């Protein structure tokens, strides 16, 4: 699903955000991307989402070579990704329903189908009944779950999450992580970037540890 081959990303300042990173994430895997802030976690996710392009090395995601992808292909490529952001990135002048519906609207689903899928996704994250709320009226944890519902509503092949528990208390954080595990259990490939080592310490999942832009360790517990 994700294949990095000797990937380096050098900023114009000369600083290497990622340095010679190679790894493969297979279909259906769940992996955590950890490391101190500034270690390159967000940069790696940006490469996967075709937000940044690598300076050298090759990035292949979902069969698409992102070094060569045409600008016009990027939207279609991203429709196969679900992205969860640390700061939710919800649209504040749209209702919860409309926020979650956005990926389906973009993909060209019709109204009834959109409604059905949005309710299913909200049900999954435990927010059914809050469709007509606006994001600001929800708690941080609820907003994050809306963000997750939006990321999974179109059943992406790959789910990316950048510090999804960053602003949450431990209890909520565990709940969110459980959600990711559940999605993974039904087949979605999941890559979660987090600096919350404690949260994942007891979990037996693959861990990619970044240190100053290098892949320091690739462990299974």
């Amino acid at each position, binding site marked *: 699903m994700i294949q990095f081959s000797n990937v380096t990303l050098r900023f114009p300042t000369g600083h290497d955000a990622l340095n010679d990173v190679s790894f*493969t994430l*297979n*279909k*259906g*895997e769940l*992996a955590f991307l950890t490391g101190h802030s500034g270690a390159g976690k967000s940069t790696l996710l*940006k490469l996967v*989402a075709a*937000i*940044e392009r690598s300076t050298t090395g090759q990035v292949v995601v*979902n*069969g698409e070579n992102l070094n060569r992808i045409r600008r016009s292909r990027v*939207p*279609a*490529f*991203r*429709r*196969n*990704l679900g*992205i969860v952001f640390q700061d939710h*990135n*919800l*649209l504040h*002048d*749209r209702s919860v329903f*409309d926020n979650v*519906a*956005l*990926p*389906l*609207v*973009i*993909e*060209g*689903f*019709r*109204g*009834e*189908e*959109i409604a*059905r*899928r949005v309710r*299913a*996704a909200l*049900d*999954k994250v435990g927010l059914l009944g809050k469709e007509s709320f606006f994001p600001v009226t929800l708690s941080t944890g609820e907003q994050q779950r809306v963000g997750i519902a*939006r990321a*999974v*509503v179109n*059943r992406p*092949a790959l789910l990316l999450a950048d510090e999804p528990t960053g602003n949450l208390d431990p209890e909520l954080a565990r709940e969110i992580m459980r959600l990711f595990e559940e*999605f993974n*259990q*039904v*087949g*979605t490939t999941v890559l979660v970037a987090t600096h919350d080592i404690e949260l994942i310490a007891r979990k037996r999942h*693959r861990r990619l540890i970044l240190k100053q832009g290098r892949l320091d360790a*690739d462990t*299974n517990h």
Partner: protein
Amino acid sequence: MPSDPPRKPRPRSGARDVNPSKPLDLNTPEIRSNVNSTRGTTFRAQWRAYAAAHRWAVLGTLAQFRRMPYTTALTCVALGIALAFPAVLFVLLQNVQQVTARWDGAAQISLYLKTSTTETQALKLAEQLRTQPDIGKVDYISKARALEDFQRYSGLGDALALLGENPLPPVLVVHPKDAQVKPDAVQRLVQTLQTNPAVDVAQWDMQWLQRLHGLIAVGQRAILVIGALLLIAALVVVGNTIRLAVQNRTQEIKVTKLIGASDGFVRRPFLYSGFCYGLTGGLFAIGVVSTVLWALHDPVHAVALSYSSNFELHGLGFELSALLLAAGIGLGLTGSWLSVSRHLRAIEPGVA
């Protein structure tokens, strides 16, 4: 490398419409049965999808108006005035043309015959002229009749009595056949008549009409230039408003692009805004033009009456109103298209 093998066979890939069986709890049988129809090729299904996408765009447009109500109103007003100004000039000029068209019909040429011409000769010439294809009517005014008219209308009759002899020449008044004859055609007729040996002076009484036509042509050109300048100004105003709107929604645009929205999807609400600006501006322009014409109507009518004319100021009319609306919508759409295309590319997720 992963120790856990994949837990389940996964039928998913990028080609989601090929294989509808999906994971997650979302995959209820009810939903699964509908997957194939979601992006169906039937017109109805496509229309529904289209409607969903457009509902989204309309909501975005409305949110945009709510967020910047003053800028929105000002843009519509500016667009309206830019449209109304040339439109008012155009309508007024059209009215002038209508008036002068009536005068064209009254175009007449006075042939002052040589004073030695006898009445028989004059009548014979008149008869001869009537047979010409481009001449409709010829009136003969004898020396005596001319004197009579002069005495009656000029108030200088007593002065003429001092001269003893009637100094006025006989006159033939020639009316061109075609009521809407063109000024240069009349001019040609005058030149031909002038060559007749019996004619002393051939005078076109409405020569100033020609000059008026010239002035109208200048006016038309001026309106074209002013209109073009205001059109550019309107484009700039709309473009600037849309630029502000794009900046206001930078975050939203980044998010939608990250979710996989195409440029077209992101552009749509802004085009709707442009359309609304154009429509409102066009309606506003129609209102302004109608108000101006209404304000001018009574004074113009009073002036016309003093010239014993029944002239009424003509209004905008349906066609011109439709044209104004279309021009407004065209301007709004073009302005927003240019602006949004220019500014959208710069907004990419990840680029601060």
